[in-house]
């Protein structure tokens, strides 16, 4: 089969893309982007023709840590790489994979992909973009010395071969449903130029904007890429990120128009600010983030499924959602709604219906008739939503006779303990969007370091996860992930509480042609223009 630019919505591409929320689709259509429209068309629908030039100021809450897409590990860098670099594929506004630096690909067999590359694309330093750059990028990713986080994602890649100047072939070890998703994800799959060092401080990409300057804690400046391949884009001359390290100052900066656009972590804050002016636009984006309670199942009492099920029964997920997020979100299972096989928050899940009496019965059966003290429950101190939810859970569980002591911790040591399974009993760390549901459910298998270290030993679940990876049919894949989530909920391996958008984006209406993306990057700054 051959896939070309004008036939972007091919079956294979659609198969790789996550499910689509009807309402989100509708909203995005209203915001200016209908399915299948080219980006330029997306930008133009709305108010009048785009204006060229001008400057967009974005309020950011974190500095980047490194700008070399191969080696950077920090989420805070994604906002910047998303505008500087581009990859063979990308996510469109509806979270479907579409061609970017590739014009299309052939798939002669399930483990071989042959990409045709766009001609005439140049890196910011003037160098031509060629197949050798693609090979160079993936060789760097797979070189252990690079310590690239993308290496795990592309573990399925056996070899990358330059066929000719504008053709490159990927050979995989086994069929991988996630491969195209990873390629479309920025910075995981973006292409870096050959022979250019120090990308971490002096980034060179093929993206719509060129790195101009960076003053840490102050601002990060980008200029339009004059030789960007999409005709007429970007509209803006300059994009400036200004850093505000807390939500209160971001609010004030947006209201005083010191910034044109930002995002909030808390829906209540976002709602509060949008109410202050009719010219403020807010789009919550899709639910991408889940708030789970992870359990250490290596030892008693949480190695006993009855205790875990009792915890699940004692939890009132809807009450947490209502109190912490004011209802702006959904009850969660392992996979957020924006993914293939994501849980919609309404469907039946085992042990999700709150039942204190049943929880107490299960505890008594497990030998804890007088209640149980689970000790420290670790949460990320820097995330007020998490800390709030933990306090509500503490009260809910107390009603079933389950006692916990909340211990807020710094992020770094908490994640270290989580990955190594070195936490006492309970721990919460929210999961942000990942390119593919496989990356999420893999965390709870006994094959993955983390699942193994927290005491997972479920061969059936492992087999289910391995199988789901290779299912290329979208519908069948969704079913497989629903089955996996039901199995996890039935055994209460993890307590997922609620899902919500990581980012509550808000901007002044003079910034037009913008749409939020569930992939948690601001791709559509390239189609944004300013009409002041």
């Amino acid at each position, binding site marked *: 089969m051959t896939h070309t630019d004008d036939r972007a919505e091919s079956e294979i591409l659609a198969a790789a893309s996550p499910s689509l929320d009807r309402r989100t689709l509708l909203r995005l259509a209203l915001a200016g982007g209908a399915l299948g429209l080219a980006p330029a068309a997306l930008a133009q629908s709305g108010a009048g023709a785009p204006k060229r030039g001008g400057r967009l100021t974005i309020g950011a809450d974190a500095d980047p840590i490194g700008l070399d897409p191969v080696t950077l590990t920090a989420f805070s860098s994604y906002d910047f790489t998303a505008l500087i670099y581009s990859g063979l594929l990308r996510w469109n506004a509806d979270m479907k994979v579409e061609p970017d630096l590739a014009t299309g690909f052939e798939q002669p067999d399930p483990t071989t992909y042959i990409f045709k590359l766009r001609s005439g694309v140049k890196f910011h330093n003037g160098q031509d973009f060629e197949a050798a750059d693609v090979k160079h990028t993936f060789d760097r990713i797979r070189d252990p010395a690079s310590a690239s986080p993308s290496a795990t994602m592309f573990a399925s890649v056996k070899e990358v071969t330059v066929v000719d100047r504008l053709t490159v072939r990927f050979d995989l070890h086994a069929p991988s449903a996630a491969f195209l998703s990873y390629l479309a994800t920025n910075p995981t799959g973006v292409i870096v130029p050959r022979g250019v060092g120090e990308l971490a401080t002096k980034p060179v990409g093929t993206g719509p904007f060129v790195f101009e300057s960076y003053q840490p804690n102050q601002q990060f400046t980008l200029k339009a890429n004059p030789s960007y391949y999409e005709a007429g884009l970007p509209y803006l001359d300059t994009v400036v990120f200004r850093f505000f390290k807390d939500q209160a100052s971001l609010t004030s900066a947006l209201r005083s128009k010191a910034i044109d656009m930002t995002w909030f972590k808390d829906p209540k804050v976002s709602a509060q600010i949008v109410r202050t002016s009719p010219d403020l636009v807010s789009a919550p984006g899709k639910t991408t983030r889940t708030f789970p309670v992870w359990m250490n199942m290596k030892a008693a009492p949480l190695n006993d499924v009855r205790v875990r099920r009792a915890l699940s029964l004692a939890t009132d997920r809807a009450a947490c959602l209502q109190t912490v997020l004011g209802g702006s979100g959904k009850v969660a299972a392992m996979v957020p709604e924006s993914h293939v096989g994501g849980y919609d928050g309404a469907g039946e899940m085992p042990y999700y219906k709150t039942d204190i009496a049943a929880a107490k019965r299960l505890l008594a059966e497990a030998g804890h008739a007088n209640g149980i003290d689970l000790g420290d429950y670790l949460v990320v*101190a820097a995330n*007020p939503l998490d800390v709030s939810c933990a*306090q509500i859970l503490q009260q809910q569980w107390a009603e079933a006779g389950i006692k916990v002591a909340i211990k*807020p911790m710094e992020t770094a040591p908490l994640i270290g303990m989580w990955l190594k399974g070195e936490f006492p009993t309970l721990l919460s760390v929210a999961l942000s969007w990942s390119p593919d549901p496989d990356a999420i459910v893999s965390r709870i298998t006994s094959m993955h370091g983390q699942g193994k270290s927290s005491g997972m030993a479920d061969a059936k679940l492992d087999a289910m996860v391995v199988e789901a990876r290779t299912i290329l049919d979208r519908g069948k894949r969704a079913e497989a992930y629903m089955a996996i989530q039901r199995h996890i909920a039935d055994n209460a391996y993890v307590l997922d509480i609620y899902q919500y958008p990581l980012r509550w984006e808000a901007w002044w209406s003079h910034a037009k042609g913008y749409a939020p993306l569930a992939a948690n990057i601001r791709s559509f700054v390239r189609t944004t223009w300013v009409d002041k």
Partner: protein
Amino acid sequence: MVAIGAAMLALLLLVVVAGPSIAPFNAAKTSANSLAGPDATHWLGTDSIGRDLLSRLIVGGRGTLTITFVAVALALAAGLVLGLVSGYVGGKVDLVIMRLLDVVFAFPVFLLAIAVVAALGPTIRNLIITIAIVYTPTLARVVRGPVLSVKRWDHVEAARSVGVGEFRIAVVHVLPLVISPILVQTSLTLANTIFTVTALSFLGLGPPPPDPNWGSMLAEARQFMELAPLTVIGPAVAIVFASLTFIVLANGLREVLDVGNR
């Protein structure tokens, strides 16, 4: 002055002792009724997860003040010992103690606090230890200064000449003479400690939830303050009232004991 200070202190002590029993609600109980304004049920309204603000102020005051008192008591004990030894023995011992205290003095307070909390966890005990360490040098200096001059006074020399032991001289003859400046300084340190306790909690380094603390309450309220200004004003007024108590007390003591009234 002392009387006013004492009256204010009595009110604070009432909060510390009675705390939860005079609070109208369970200070930890959440509800969906969040960021509500003041009404007949919730006199000061509720916070972002629906907890009664007045109850949290009262219970939070108990937490804040207990930490303050215990930390200052520890710092005072350590400061007294170090200051007396340093000033009284003098020589190399004095030099070593003072240089060590200089290291603590020159060390950024917040780095120390962050380090202790990150390494040992944010518990009330660890917060108390951190603050005690931070204030020990100041109190030790306040003790050492007068000791240096007092130990050469005639009656101290006289006691020494009739063969009274050095330890006895230090405790019986020197200590009482330096007690007034110490009292005043302790009262001021209490005010400063309120500041430090609430500042550290404000930065998220205070006692863990659901225990309320004026500092963390102020920090939590900041992002919603335009919706519910009382969530900010409540803890702010409480912090000011508590430190004002100790400042008034210090000023009163200074007058009564005639310390530093040049």
